[in-house]
């Protein structure tokens, strides 16, 4: 059912969107598709569940039309309007606003003759003006989107054209399902496609998904089984298979389907075969694929929840206030109706002034009262200021202008500034209470730096390395006056400004590589700096900071003991030091090979350095030939089944195998028989091993004597190696290993080559890789050790997991067992220490298996792999069987470097009363570590971890935690009530800070309807929440949930404390209070009713009324709203606490509203009755009487603004004076021109008369003074007796710079702030808060932190779209790789 609808919608878009396709080039123009619609109308039934993709080429024309023709093409359209539907649709949307409907109602009402108060036509003007302004604004906004869409749609990609028998350039928008697309390295994928070919010999393609999920590490994708082995590129002409897959959905992590060859053979497809739109091809020369989902059906676009009307908090409140106004209006109108009824009944004998109806009879008082009600509604309609919404919109535009042109948000490196995408919510920036932050790229740089390691129970703290990192920091921070860092964790904060480049430096001690290489690598690595694609290149290469690990001298010393002889006495008891050395060797080998790192050279980044390159090398000398031979012999001896191992990759795909979906990047399982034969050959292999060991030994000696590893000539220089890792910490470990001369040289699915300093090049036959998964939290490689020729399992993983898997009873005897226990304890101590420092810890362990053991395991594993039902569990079990009885080798500590200034920023945000949620796709341990490192969690925080497998368990756990929290925090028992939910408690003041950790799986339960409430209640009690392993959709759901249920301002993706916005919070409030001046003005009309028999007379000309509403009194508030600034940015940056003021939106509290209303009431009384008593009993006429009222009202409104505003510039003055002058000018001109116009009111010559009358001035001055006196007094008293924090902060601005610093310091020390806040706000929660920054200079760090989030380039578009969907931002950012 949805399919035809979608099609219809799409078709409508096509018709209205004015597409400019070139029909001739296409064999299947759209019209032909349309023509075939009729006969293929039965396909949707099939397409409802699945989609069938047939190549979009001639031989399959019929089939294509039948199946794939109905799918949308790759054109995207994110705009709301088209030229045709703009007017109706925009009007439709605008009338969603209650206010607009109300005004429409009034306009209509005015057309009823009985109640008509003004001229019919004039009444429409304000509404028309408002609608027009908003429509223009919406139109421009949409046009911007349209341009962006167009840009994306017109991106060029290579699509196979049958006509020209080659790939031709074609726009993205013209790509359709079934097209063959060829992409080169660094190109963005235009549509979701199934990978059919990759230049990579192993059929692997690397993609960067940062645009999609924000994770900047590379992901691997696999060519569809069966195509991997083809040497040449798949020829689209010969592609005769068809693909059947599931209907478009938004699950980024799922893709199911199969590819059916013409011989009905089916090959399974999984997400490993799918290239997603918006991702970038990396490190793969070229790929080819067939499009399966295009345009809006791609997963990326489906993750984009689409444009949603974002209503700002302020507008919501304005709406409530408007409702209050309506209530007030009704009361006033009822008064009028009643009064008129009474008045009418009083004059039963018709006097002159009570005019009968045109038909001669007189209406009854009741009916008259009823009519009067409606007349009054029209008359007093101005009470609901129609221009309020316009003003708010314009104010927001102005604020955006200033935010965008704020030089603090400018990133020099990227030459970009902040871009605000949603207009509606700028002012909410000042009211944020919850901040949702991604980890990767927002909090951290996602640059992993190897910091420490512990091997065989010895901690190597790598002080040199730490110093090196310090130096990076200093070098980067030279330009800023960031001083000595106050806290320990700050020292970890390095500045990553150095050009990004994951360069392998030639020497082990980080000697400098040749300039040429640096240059070329720089060009690639730093490409992101200038690139339009924000995240593009960053992930591909690491900075030297990550790559240059300085070895620990103690550990290096121990390396000298490494000799190949170590491996000979295999079965004798080894003395301890030797054993330690063995551990060290194993440890570093594990670091180097236990990963899925891909090796490539930076100058040819698209080619992996495989063994193939070896063959092509020109052999230069005899020695080279010798070494080559040695290496080849090593290979042969250590991999006896070389031929058989090759088989699966070269032979015809085994149907059995091909049906299996790939685990991850796993070596395709060999059939058992082969493995068996392999093991049976092994004795022979080990017999041979003596010889290669000999040669290795020689080699090793050479290496040691030379002091450094001069790479074998046949090999590419070590300096030219770049490592690509799925996760950056893997790369960090490889770099660490390289620093100890254990260099990963190459990796193919069959073998790994490591250049080990003392042992020479080692080639490990790769038997198996058990990839990382979140359940096991570890990964393993199974290799055959080239020296010992044993099957060795190297495992690295989370410490908690590995520790449990260690062998309890060592087979090597009680001595070893005891030693292992010791080692474990020591390592655990080290691990704890690492964790405290915020390092990501990993344990490295190994296990030696006998060949029979391995064969046994392999058989089982193969069974698991081939089973169809519950394969996942079986594979897990199989992995468990392999990864046990491990021997602990050591542990590593890696630092995921935080972005510059992040801890300070977070601290400042906490102080500003903002709760921070970290939503990350990362694994739990990482997320928690980062949370600690960035001070999101403090070490003494109580941590609650929600990690359950079922909904019930989740519910129970949450219950328990809640109870515990209630026990701990008895001070706030009422928090459980619903009010507490709506007004979330400030950070608990009892001192107990709680953090909540929840993983994606549990989150899914928690987000279910029934548990939402409980989850929120729990979350509201925790000052920090970390959601790990969350999908983008989940992230968006969390944001939505919190926003809608806690009714608070939320900001997704941290862009730091927002000083600009904060300055501007109060202003919209002021703008509104200016509008409330209108109410005073309206009340004048109301008071007049008491003196005109409640007949609905207006003493003001309606034109003046309109101008009052639209011009005189809306321009100044707008200017105020845009330019208002209560405290200087510098002071604000130093006192993040001030932010709380805006957060509680004090400037626009309901109380404020009522006070303002009361004030308006008073002002209107004064404004009416002073002229009234002045002119009482005189011969003044209606409109002459109205003139001083209007004039005084204008002065009151404007001066009211002056009193309320916090700073006045010449622009303010200009606008105020301009307003007044314009008013008089208008009144004079109108009064002179309008002789008979605009009946019944007649302003003719009234202003002129008044301008000559001193009484007029006297009345105006008196009225203005009396009306403003109370507010003025109130402000004065407030200023002197109980100044608000903001006001106090303003005092600082007045002081000279030194004094100000001094004063600020003292303020903080005194902590008086808190007391004051609690005194004047109902939140006393702030009290206990300590303000740790005592050094004023630390504040600069905060300041730089604010801008850094933007600067770091990960947020090229500062996501000011705060309460917009998390994923929406992501997706839109993705959809538009170019910003401008």
């Amino acid at each position, binding site marked *: 059912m949805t399919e035809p609808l979608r099609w219809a919608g799409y078709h409508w878009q096509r018709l209205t969107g004015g597409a400019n396709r070139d029909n001739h080039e296409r064999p299947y123009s759209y019209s032909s598709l349309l023509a075939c619609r009729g006969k293929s109308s039965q396909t949707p039934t099939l397409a409802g569940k699945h989609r069938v993709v047939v190549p979009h080429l001639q031989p399959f024309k019929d089939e294509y039309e039948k199946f794939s023709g109905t799918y949308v093409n790759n054109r995207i359209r994110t705009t709301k309007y088209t030229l045709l539907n703009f007017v109706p649709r925009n009007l439709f949307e605008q009338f969603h606003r209650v206010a607009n409907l109300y005004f429409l109602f009034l306009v209509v009402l005015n057309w009823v003759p009985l109640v008509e*108060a003004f001229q019919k036509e004039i009444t429409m003007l304000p509404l028309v003006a408002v609608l027009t302004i908003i429509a223009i604004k919406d139109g421009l906004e949409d046009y911007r989107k349209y341009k962006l869409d*167009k*840009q994306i749609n017109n991106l060029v990609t290579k699509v196979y054209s049958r006509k020209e028998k080659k790939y031709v350039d074609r*726009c993205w928008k013209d790509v359709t399902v079934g097209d063959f697309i060829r992409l080169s390295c660094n190109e963005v994928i235009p549509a979701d496609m199934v990978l059919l070919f990759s230049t990579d010999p192993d059929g692997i393609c690397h993609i960067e998904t940062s645009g999609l999920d924000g994770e900047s590490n590379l992901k691997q994708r696999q060519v569809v089984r069966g195509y991997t082995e083809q040497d040449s590129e798949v020829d689209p002409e010969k592609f005769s298979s068809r693909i059947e897959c599931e209907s478009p959905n938004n699950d980024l992590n799922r893709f199911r389907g199969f590819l059916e060859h013409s011989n009905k053979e089916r090959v399974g497809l999984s997400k490993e075969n799918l290239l997603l739109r918006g991702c970038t091809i990396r490190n793969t020369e070229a790929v080819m694929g067939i499009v399966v989902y295009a345009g809006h059906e791609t997963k990326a676009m489906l993750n984009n929840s689409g444009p949603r009307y974002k209503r700002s908090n302020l507008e919501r409140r304005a709406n409530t206030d408007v409702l209050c106004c309506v209530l007030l209006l009704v009361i006033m109108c009822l008064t009028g109706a009643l009064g008129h009824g009474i008045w009418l009944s009083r004059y039963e004998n018709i*006097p*002159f*002034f009570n*005019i009968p*109806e045109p038909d001669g009879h007189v209406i009854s008082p009741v009916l008259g009262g009823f009519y009067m009600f409606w007349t009054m509604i029209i008359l007093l309609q101005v009470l609901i200021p129609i221009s309020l919404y316009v003003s708010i919109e314009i104010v927001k535009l102005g604020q955006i202008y*200033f935010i965008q*042109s704020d*030089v603090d948000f400018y990133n020099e490196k990227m*030459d*970009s*500034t902040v871009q605000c995408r949603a207009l509606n919510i700028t002012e909410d920036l000042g009211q944020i209470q919850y901040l949702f932050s991604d980890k990767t790229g927002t909090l951290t740089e996602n640059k992993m730096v190897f910091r420490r390691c512990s091997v065989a129970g010895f901690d190597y703290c790598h002080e040199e390395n730490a110093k090196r990192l310090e130096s990076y920091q200093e070098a980067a921070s030279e330009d800023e006056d960031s001083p000595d860092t106050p806290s320990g964790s700050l020292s970890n904060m390095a500045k990553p400004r150095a050009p990004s480049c994951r360069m392998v430096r030639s020497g082990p001690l980080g000697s400098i590589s040749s300039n040429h290489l640096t240059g070329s690598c*720089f*060009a*690639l690595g730093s*490409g992101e*700096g200038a690139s*339009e694609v924000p995240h*593009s290149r960053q992930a591909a290469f690491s900075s030297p900071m990550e790559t240059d690990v300085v070895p620990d001298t103690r550990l290096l010393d121990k390396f000298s003991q490494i000799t190949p002889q170590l491996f000979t006495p295999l079965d004798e008891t080894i003395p301890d030091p030797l054993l330690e050395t063995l551990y060290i060797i194993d440890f570093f080998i594990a670091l180097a090979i236990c990963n899925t790192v891909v090796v490539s050279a930076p100058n040819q980044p698209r080619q992996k350095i495989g063994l193939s390159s070896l063959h092509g090398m020109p052999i230069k000398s005899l020695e080279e030939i010798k070494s080559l031979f040695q290496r080849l012999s090593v290979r042969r001896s250590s991999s006896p089944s070389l031929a058989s191992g090759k088989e699966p990759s070269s032979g015809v795909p085994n149907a059995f195998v091909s049906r299996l979906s790939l685990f991850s990047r796993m070596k395709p399982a060999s059939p058992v028989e082969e493995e068996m034969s392999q093991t049976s050959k092994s004795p022979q292999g080990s017999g041979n091993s003596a010889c290669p060991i000999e040669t290795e030994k020689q080699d090793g000696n050479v290496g040691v004597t030379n002091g450094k590893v001069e790479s074998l000539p046949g090999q590419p220089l070590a300096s030219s190696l770049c490592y690509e890792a799925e996760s950056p910490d893997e790369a960090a470990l490889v770099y660490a290993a390289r620093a100890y001369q254990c260099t990963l040289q190459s990796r193919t699915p069959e073998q790994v080559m490591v250049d080990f300093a003392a042992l020479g090049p080692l080639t490990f036959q790769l038997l198996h890789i058990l990839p990382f998964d979140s359940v096991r939290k570890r990964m393993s490689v199974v290799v055959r050790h080239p020296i010992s020729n044993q099957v060795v399992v190297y495992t690295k993983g989370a410490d908690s997991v590995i520790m449990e898997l260690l062998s309890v009873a060592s087979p090597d005897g009680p001595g070893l067992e005891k030693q292992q226990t010791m080692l474990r304890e020591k390592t655990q101590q080290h691990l704890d220490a690492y964790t405290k420092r915020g390092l990501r810890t990993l344990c490295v362990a190994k296990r030696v298996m006998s060949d029979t053991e391995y064969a046994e395991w392999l058989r089982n594993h193969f069974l698991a792999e081939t089973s169809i039902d519950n394969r996942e569990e079986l594979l897990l079990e199989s992995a468990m069987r392999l990864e046990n009885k491990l021997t602990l080798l050591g542990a590593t500590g890696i630092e995921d470097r935080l972005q510059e200034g992040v801890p300070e920023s977070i601290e400042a945000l906490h102080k500003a009363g903002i709760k921070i949620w970290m939503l990350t796709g990362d694994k739990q341990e990482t997320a928690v570590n980062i949370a600690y490192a960035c001070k999101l969690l403090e070490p003494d925080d109580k941590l609650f971890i929600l990690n359950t497998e079922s909904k019930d368990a989740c519910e129970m756990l949450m219950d328990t935690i809640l109870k515990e929290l209630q026990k701990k925090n008895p001070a706030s028992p009422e928090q459980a009530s619903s009010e507490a939910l709506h007004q979330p408690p400030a950070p608990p003041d009892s001192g107990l800070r709680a953090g909540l950790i929840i993983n994606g799986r549990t989150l899914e339960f928690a987000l279910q309807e029934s548990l939402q409430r409980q989850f929120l209640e729990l979350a509201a009690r925790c000052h920090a929440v970390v959601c790990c392993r969350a999908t983008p959709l989940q992230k968006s759901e969390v944001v939505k949930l919190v926003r809608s249920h806690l009714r608070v301002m939320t900001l997704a993706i941290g862009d730091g404390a927002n000083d*600009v916005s904060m300055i501007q919070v109060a202003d919209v409030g002021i703008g509104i209070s200016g509008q409330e001046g209108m109410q005073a003005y309206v009340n004048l009309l109301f008071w007049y009713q008491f*003196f*005109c*028999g409640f007949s*609905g*007379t207006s003493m003001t000309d309606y034109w003046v009324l309109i101008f009052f509403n639209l011009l005189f009194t809306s321009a100044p508030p707008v200017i105020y709203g845009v330019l208002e600034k209560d405290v200087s940015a510098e002071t604000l940056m130093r006192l993040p606490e001030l932010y709380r003021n805006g957060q509680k939106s004090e400037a626009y509290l309901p109380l404020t509203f009522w006070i303002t209303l009361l004030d308006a009431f008073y002002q209107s009384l004064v404004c009416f009755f002073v002229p009234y*008593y*002045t*002119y*009482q*009993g005189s*011969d*003044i*006429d209606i409109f002459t*009487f109205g003139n001083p009222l209007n004039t005084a009202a204008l002065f009151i409104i404007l001066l009211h603004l002056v009193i309320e505003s*916090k700073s006045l510039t010449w*622009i303010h003055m200009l606008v105020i004076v301009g307003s007044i002058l314009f008013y008089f000018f208008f009144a004079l001109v109108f009064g002179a021109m309008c002789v*008979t116009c605009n*009946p*019944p009111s007649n302003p003719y*010559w009234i202003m*002129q008369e008044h301008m000559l*009358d*001193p*009484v007029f001035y*006297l*009345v105006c001055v*008196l009225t203005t*003074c009396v009306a403003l006196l109370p507010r*003025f007094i109130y402000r*004065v008293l407030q*200023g*002197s007796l109980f100044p608000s924090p903001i*006001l106090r902060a303003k005092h600082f601005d007045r*002081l000279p710079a030194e004094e100000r610093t001094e*004063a600020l310091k*003292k*303020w903080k020390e005194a902590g008086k702030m808190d007391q004051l806040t609690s005194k004047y706000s109902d939140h006393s929660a702030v009290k206990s808060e300590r303000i740790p920054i005592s050094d004023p200079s630390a504040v600069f760090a905060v300041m730089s932190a604010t801008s850094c989030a933007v600067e770091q380039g990960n947020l090229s578009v500062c996501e000011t779209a705060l309460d917009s969907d998390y994923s929406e931002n992501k997706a839109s950012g993705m959809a538009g790789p170019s910003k401008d």
Partner: protein
Amino acid sequence: MAMNYNAKDEVDGGPPCAPGGTAKNRRPDNTAFKQQRLPAWQPILTAGTVLPTFFIIGLIFIPIGIGIFVTSNNIREIEGNVFMYYGLSNFYQNHRRYVKSRDDSQLNGDPSALLNPSKECEPYRRNEDKPIAPCGAIANSMFNDTLDLFLVGNESDPTPIPLKKKGIAWWTDKNVKFRNPPGADIPLEERFKGTTKPVNWVKPVYMLDPDEDNSGFINEDFIVWMRTAALPTFRKLYRLIERKNDLHPTLPAGRYYLNITYNYPVHSFDGRKRMILSTISWMGGKNPFLGIAYIAIGSISFLLGVVLLVINHKYRNSSNTADITI
């Protein structure tokens, strides 16, 4: 555009530095306006800062008030030109439908409007199939009592006081806004041909005054009436008693006699009629309110100034300065 994009993305991926080399620079201008650093006056309203304001207001307002008050009270003495008003109370000339019930175009002498008055005039638009001139309820209800003032010098022969009919309306009203139908040489009656008098009127509009310059729509009594009063109790200028050039007061002390030709019923709305004689000062008629108000506000302001002075002295140490110096 697409090519541009690609080119930029793929080719121009070189080092981003080359400062100054790139022509396009998105760096926002570092101007005071854009960076919101315009020199601003930041008023901080504290007792100390606003003290002078209050005293100044007090010092200005009180003398003004006294001046106004004195002026207003001096009006009593009938010297100079004396203005003769008639007053009506409880007469809602400001009723919405009443106010609307007129046709300004007709009153402006528009011939087409004369014969086809605006619908707003209903039900006083036509009478016996003839358009009413002037149409509408306001004109229909025009005050038509006649007031004559006599000085009773000796019992038998009271001397009538000369009352000036002209000059009581706004000059602009008389000369611009109100005009008789066109035709300068044609008698006024001809110009109003085809119209009928308002229902309540005794005479048609062109016979309001024998002086053609004060008859028809430009009759000043009519113009004054048509300027509808703002409040239900009002007065309207009726006549002017001009001061003679000798030293005698305009209306010397003595007994006066007011002759009223009663035409205008006010019982139906509990109305009352008055006759007011008043001179006019620079600030209009006699009204003590403004003067008193100025004096009162000036005094309050002065008082507040004193209170603030106290506050300023008392709180300076504990609040303002405390913030800054702690």
